[in-house]
């Protein structure tokens, strides 16, 4: 079979066209994103920024967003490491289905997660029994963590699985012959080698949890000082016409999200690429 000219290595002036042409797309995409943010920043007044930085309810919402998203990240890690390891290392009947179910929360609309949780705790026997026995989630701060976990834990699991896939099994095997049991090989070899990918997944999970809004609105509502997170506060501010304050709060979120994404690049960028 002959090679098409587009398959052949690009040489000479074509190489220039390729790099300039492709870079143009990069410039357009990054430029458009930055323009949107700059547009927001230009619209926001100093008073709005002052309100966001000083209003107690914004501070409460920010604090609630931060601690719930960090708790969600921690809870996701607790699941991501063992689940990712099992999916990476073991073969079992129905694995393809299990694998797909793990990914399911990534693809279904976040709103559905909130609705599903609400139905579970209000309409099913198990859910009502849990609510009746002190495990209250609906319209509760702990419900924020549960909702964020359902929506974002899959990112941590997927990332952990990819990270474990990257660890050469022969390296683990050598550790087993050098005095390690399976726990020892996992702790001294597998986990340290998968660390960057797991951390990258955790940060991605945190960023996702930090930003969700729709499912929270349905499952825990937006009670000021109790279940109002920053994304909900933005929604409430714009719904009462305080667009500038909403945009200032949004810029605060964007700044925090940007810091998180930069952290991903520094800590586990390579693993993230393989997600």
């Amino acid at each position: 079979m002959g090679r098409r000219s587009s398959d052949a290595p690009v040489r000479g002036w074509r190489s220039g066209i390729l790099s300039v042409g492709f870079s143009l797309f990069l410039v357009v995409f990054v430029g458009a994103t930055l323009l949107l943010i700059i547009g927001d920043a230009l619209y926001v007044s100093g008073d709005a920024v002052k309100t966001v930085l000083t209003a107690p309810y914004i501070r409460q919402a920010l604090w609630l967003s931060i601690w719930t998203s960090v708790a969600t990240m921690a809870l996701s890690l607790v699941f991501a490491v063992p689940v990712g390891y099992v999916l990476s290392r073991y073969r079992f009947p129905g694995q393809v289905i299990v694998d797909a179910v793990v990914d399911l929360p990534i693809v279904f609309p976040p709103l559905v997660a909130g609705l599903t949780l609400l139905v579970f705790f209000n309409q099913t026997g198990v859910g009502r029994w849990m609510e009746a026995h002190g495990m209250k989630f609906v319209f509760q701060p702990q419900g924020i963590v549960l909702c964020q976990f359902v929506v974002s834990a899959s990112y941590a699991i997927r990332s952990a699985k990819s990270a474990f896939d990257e660890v050469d099994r022969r390296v683990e095997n050598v550790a087993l012959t050098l005095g390690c049991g399976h726990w020892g090989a996992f702790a001294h070899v597998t986990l340290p080698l998968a660390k960057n990918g797991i951390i990258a997944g955790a940060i991605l999970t945190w960023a996702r949890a930090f930003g969700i809004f729709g499912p929270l609105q349905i499952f825990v509502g937006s009670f000021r000082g109790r279940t109002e997170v920053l994304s909900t506060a933005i929604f409430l501010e714009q719904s009462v016409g305080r667009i500038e304050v909403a945009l200032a709060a949004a810029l605060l979120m964007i700044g925090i999200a940007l810091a998180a994404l930069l952290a991903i690049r520094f800590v586990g960028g390579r693993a993230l690429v393989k997600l």
Partner: protein
Amino acid sequence: MIRAENVSFRIGDFHLRDITLDVKPGEYFVLMGPPGSGKTIFLECLCGLKRVDSGRIIIDRRDATRLEPRARAIGYVPQDYALFPHYDVEHNINFGLKRTAVPADTARRKTKEVADLLGIGHLLKRSVGGLSGGERQRVALARAVVVEPKVLLLDEPVSALDEPTRRMVCSELRALQRKLGVSTVHITHNCEEAFSVADRGAVLHQGGLQQTGTLTELFRKPCNEFVARFMSCENICEGEVVADARKPDRTTLKVARTQFVVPGCFEGKVKFIVRPENIRLSRSRADLAEGDTALELRLARATDCGVYVRVELDGAMPLVSTVSHAAFGELRAEVGDTLVATIRRGAVHVLGQA
């Protein structure tokens, strides 16, 4: 020191069948076979990285069949070495010592001793990422021997090295093994590599052990055509017994367009090899002893192989002969000349019924 008794293991369509072999204390044993023959799987069974379906593995007089890898007192060097990329050279080497509660100062001393023995003492603080192939191989070897294993298991330890380094490392491996006196199982698909290190060896094919013996035995007296071909034997021939010419101690075969005498009594079709170095070439027929065969063949090609000349002969029974430069010079033969190839009875090894 390490013995496998009827070891069987099945994975997918591949079946390792009834492998029995015994490696003596201090012996350097090479397990050979083409890629896909089951060498690595067998080695992993010896390591305990795969649980055998049946059979026993005895290490240092202990039944290790159900022991975890860490309890088997083995040192293992896998293909491509599998160094720990998150540790430097020193931590790679002393990894096993740290896991076995060796005091820190003893671990440091042993690590230094082994590293110096292998000529990598100056690399201890280096990251493993920047090491050359030969250095990586030495680090992997140091990591395996520093725990003082009863048996050293090496999975194609030099296959990733270039030819000159491979030769040098093979001779170092042999010297190290002699110095440590540790029983060693080394697997390879290269019989030249096996010759350079081994006391004894075995050939594996499609999960079955074909033959065990000294390298000379495997080379000079292969048990079947596969072993003969794997050991790079030349002149593998097939002939049919001439019924009316059979005798108790020798059989006359019809081979291609001539007759050939092989030792032993056979029926039907027989496969045999003729050792190229035992074929005498001359310009005219000499007196033949009983059981010898002389064939008139045409010189098809003569290749200078450095220490000998490889002579390809064509005719009724094509053969390859290896002769010294002096002997070939005396023949004053050109391509196309007819030569007499005299094959002594002892130069023939019968592989068995075809």
